[in-house]
């Protein structure tokens, strides 16, 4: 299986603080969950994979491209989808315009932009609000617009940071189905606090703590790590707590 993400020994420092420490990660097609407590480095790892920031050390290849090369980075970004943890938006843009704007910035072929935008908006269930201005939408709807802009170019590498924050249970179920569908053709990396999202949508999961990956396996394997653990409301949560406890002791 081809690896769409190949990170070897990447680290990232902000001043004196090392947020990512020697992360090694290879991810192929499928939905990959990234779990971890606040400050574990999930968002920094995702921003690095999204080429928003460069690693301080280590090597990275994404979809076969070297993101440190400007030409390759530009080509890579055409096949990239990214939903940041905190999604900014232009309040006067309509939903359609916002998604179209990012489709154009991703340099989609002109003829494909219109249908792709309409399709992406439909997939997040906002077809009826395509002409609404962003400032009229609820927080959950804005999150869904963010997902739409991330998937508009049918990305081969999709990076979603807390995608289900603000979504109601029904929307969350729809979202998981969408992510599973996208994971059929490309790589989806989902960073989340919500372990049930991982259990329902991910084929593989990594658990981060203090800037390092401390567990990597399937959701079932994580669940098994929680056997005998009493803290946690679900088997997956018990596995999560168990791994973290083990790491910290």
């Amino acid at each position, binding site marked *: 299986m081809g690896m769409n993400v190949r990170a070897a020994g990447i680290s990232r420092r902000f001043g004196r603080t090392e947020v990512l420490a020697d992360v090694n990660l290879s991810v192929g097609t499928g939905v990959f969950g990234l779990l971890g407590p606040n400050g574990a480095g999930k968002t920094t790892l995702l921003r690095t994979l999204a080429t928003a920031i460069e690693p301080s050390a280590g090597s990275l290849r994404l979809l076969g491209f070297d993101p440190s090369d400007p030409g390759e980075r530009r*080509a890579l970004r055409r096949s990239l989808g990214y939903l940041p943890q905190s999604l900014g938006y232009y309040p006067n843009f309509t939903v359609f315009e916002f998604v179209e704007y990012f489709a154009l910035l991703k340099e989609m072929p002109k003829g494909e932009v219109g249908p792709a935008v309409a399709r992406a908006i439909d997939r997040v269930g906002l077809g009826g609000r395509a002409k609404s201005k962003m400032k009229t939408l609820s927080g959950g709807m804005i999150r869904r617009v963010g997902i739409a802009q991330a998937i508009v170019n049918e990305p081969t590498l999709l990076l979603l940071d807390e995608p289900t924050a603000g979504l109601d249970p029904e929307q969350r179920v729809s979202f998981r189905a969408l992510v599973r569908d996208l994971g059929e053709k490309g790589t989806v990396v989902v960073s989340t606090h919500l372990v049930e999202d991982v259990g329902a949508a991910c084929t593989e999961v990594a658990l981060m703590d203090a800037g390092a990956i401390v567990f990597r396996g399937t959701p079932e394997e994580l669940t098994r790590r929680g056997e005998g653990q009493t803290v946690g409301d679900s088997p997956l949560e018990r596995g999560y707590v168990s791994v973290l406890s083990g790491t910290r002791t």
Partner: protein
Amino acid sequence: MNVNANVNAAVKETREPRAFPGLLRIETRRGVALLLSPFILAAAWWMAWYGTYGSMIEPGFSGAYIWEETSRVVKDSILTTGPLAAGIAAWVAGRNRRRGVGDLLSTTALPGARRELFTWTGAALPFVGIYLGLVVLLGVPTAINATWGTPIFGYILVGLVALLWDSALGFAAGYWLPSRFTAPLVAVALYVAHLLPMGASDYDSGVGLLSPAAYSNMSGADVFHEAPPIAAQQIMLFGGLAAAALASVAVRAGARRAGRISLTVALPVAAGGLVAALMSGNPYGFNAAEAEPVPFEYVCEGGGITVCVHPAYSKLLPETTTAVNRVAEPLVGVIGAPTRAVQIDHYMTPKDFEKGTATFGYVGDEAKFDVAYSLVADEATMEELASTGKEEGFTKEDVRVCGGSPPRRFFSPSYEAQSVVGDWLLARSGGKLPPRGSTGDCPNAEDLIEGFAALDPAERRAWLDENLADLRAGRVSLDDLP
């Protein structure tokens, strides 16, 4: 195809040009500039139109459409639109950081510098539209009504380049200092920056050229003289600064090499324009001694006396002829009285006057005010007497004896006598007398005018026949009046 071949093919693929129209459409449609543009255009048009052609409040208003005037007014609209363009561009430039979209944008394929350039274009384009709209709104009526001349495209170009400079500067300011205060501050600062050089006291220096609307009140180029050449130094200065401002954004947005190359070219161009402007003097300022006269044929109409105007004012000839002849009526047939009145440039010096001919600057009914005094004061003769010293006691004075009166150079002591007769001509034709002073040795002008008006018409005519030539030459004093 192996992996490297796929990568190379993807890298070589260029799609950016296709993105341009779509991005520009969204940027323009959703930008605040487009929303405000009808109001800005209306305000700019109202100020330009009523300050030039639409208002009788304007003393220089003639009722004639003059291409020089239209071209200059279009350029000077930059005073209204420029700071607004800068403020809006600053607001748009800071939005990505204000809205927290920067992280997301930084992961898109289109290079950041080009993205910012599109964003600026979207902010600037409505203002270019406003400017061109103003060209149309003022140019069409001028094209329909003007009887002489052509547009001065140099003026229009200077205004357009300055508008782009304002917008680019605002954008750079907003990009480098993304705060909600940047936009209003940059707009106010640019407004002041445009006004300050206009107040430069030395009209012969090029300091005024640092403002695109410099010397707008001087009307240096008029229908009598060649328009100044295109202010190339202004275009260099504003164009260079605009390019430098955008290049600074490009450098920060990631296009370091292209941005630095642009800066390397733009800054010397701007510096060259600045130096050239400061050293070149003021091409817009009027200098009658240097301005090249424009060849033209007067358009004339007969009456008691023949009235001639510049062809640019030919539509106002009948009205002017009526007004001039209403004033000149008591002098028709008087020995030594002018038989011809011609329009002259407001800024003409006495050497430009023709002996024995009355002159006036403003046309239409306004011509009465000039011609009333010109009928009784032959400035060409008086200038000759004063300059050659042929007549003792003649000294040139720029002060206005007893206040008020025509806005030209007069000579004492003859002036007061000429003023009384001129006032009488003006008053009897229905013209409002200019305000008078009441200090020093100023005689009671009203009494003298009333006394002259109360004379028996035959007696007054006899006095005029005998004395008008001397009065016009400045040889009659108040004591000689009947």
